[in-house]
């Protein structure tokens, strides 16, 4: 289980806290949605959960233990601007195999084409780079996925294709996913539980009809 316990966070440059006493947990095999207005700390929470930012107070536990500082992190983050998450000087095949050699089944399911491998990121579209990032982050040691607006830059077909792959991993490997999006319809499609993120009350679970 991926747990965030009583997280507080204030950016060094600001006096207002972005996150006040936020707790959330994601079970293996569970897709949790997070929905709410922008600029209220959803992305900060995503980065804290994936270990990119250390919270001021509170802790992140992966299966009851604190997150490893070195080595492969079982929690992987997929962000909106995928082009920032790849080294512009690397060829696609190097990016794909940064963690482990790419899995053929996975690349086929993500419609990653052979012809992309010799290209550089600026020669691919955002949707194509995002597929590469998904394939890279879906290593065998990945247990939890934080999908922060992962598909909001992409067209509907690319969105479906990427989510089908993620949901298949949830089924098969008991992956846990936190999906953050403005697109309520998308969250209703992919998530079992949806939380609404509000400034005053933190996270409120939302009933799904």
């Amino acid at each position: 289980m991926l747990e965030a316990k009583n997280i507080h966070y204030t950016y060094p440059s600001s006096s207002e806290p972005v996150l006040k006493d936020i707790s959330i947990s994601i079970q293996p095999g569970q897709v949790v949605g997070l929905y709410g207005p922008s600029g209220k700390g959803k992305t900060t929470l995503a980065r804290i959960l994936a270990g990119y930012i250390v919270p001021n107070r509170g802790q992140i536990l992966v299966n009851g233990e604190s997150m490893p500082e070195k080595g492969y992190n079982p929690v992987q983050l997929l962000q909106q601007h995928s082009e920032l998450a790849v080294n512009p000087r690397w060829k696609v095949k190097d990016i794909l195999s940064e963690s482990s050699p790419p899995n053929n089944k996975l690349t086929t399911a993500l419609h990653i084409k052979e012809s992309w491998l010799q290209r550089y990121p600026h020669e691919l579209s955002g949707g194509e780079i995002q597929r590469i990032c998904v394939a890279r982050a879906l290593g065998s040691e990945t247990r939890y996925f934080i999908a922060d607006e992962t598909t909001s830059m992409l067209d509907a077909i690319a969105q479906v294709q990427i989510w089908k792959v993620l949901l298949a991993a949830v089924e098969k490997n008991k992956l846990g996913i936190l999906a953050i999006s403005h697109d309520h319809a998308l969250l209703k499609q992919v998530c079992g539980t949806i939380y609404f993120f509000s400034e005053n009350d933190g996270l409120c679970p939302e009933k799904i009809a």
Partner: protein
Amino acid sequence: MLTVKDLNITFSRYYNSFSQTTLNPLHNIDLNLSAGEIVAIVGESGGGKSLLAHAILDILPTNAELKGTIQFREKLIDSNTIRQLRGREISLIPQSVSYLNPLIRVGKQVCRAARIGGLTKEEARMATDAAFTRFNLAPEVQSLFPFQLSGGMAQRILVAIATVAGASLIVADEPTTGLDPDRVTVFLDLLRMLADEGKAALLITHDLGAAQRVADRIAVFHGGTLVEVVKIADGSEVDNLVHPYSRALWEALPDNGFSTNGSSFSSHRHGNDEPLGCLFVKNCDRAEHRCRITYPDLVPAGNNMVRCLNA
């Protein structure tokens, strides 16, 4: 108001150290836009839709070559005339608030846009005040800095900057990407309001859902060209799409089934050679032999214009 005829854009690029190849990311584009109309260009992300906007504003990169004609009010646009039009008659609504100067109060930025658009100092001040009233912004907002704005306010300021000098053609490139639903609504309502006042708007987006809420016509972009142009009756949704790609795009929307029958891919055409067959043929379940050898034209099919031999 705007007429695009047989627009082709080719890029030369290096595929290894010294050999150049040409890409043809935009071809056979025919489109017209009349006053009071919103046309949405919808298609795969990164597929080259934005190039159309860049071509109209003449801000293509230097290694691009353009063929075909773009007319604005019956006059050809070229590198010389666009200087007179850009910012005055034709304006761009950028993608995000990061296009605002963070160090200048927003009132001044709107005013400056008006000055650049050719108004005198006095006129610009009045136009700025008028724009703030019109877009429902309190006069105090004029003295705020961009970081002090809420999302919705920032969206209104961006629109105010684009329209303060009275532009009659508005080009919006992916204006709703990454916005929360409230801001999307604010933006779409503003766009509709401007169109109802007689302006023409070209909305470039990957979000078919947003497009169908506001556009008069939707042009579906795939593989570097328009594969379908469909009229939308007021308030209704598009349900009469014909081209297999547009159908796939429609069915992939979370509200309409979230299914993946199609593929969002199109390979860019290389070079200037005539395409052999339909570009969608590999992903199409209705493809026949003739689809592989004949390049389809955009032809009327029912109320739509469709680039498909089976339409």
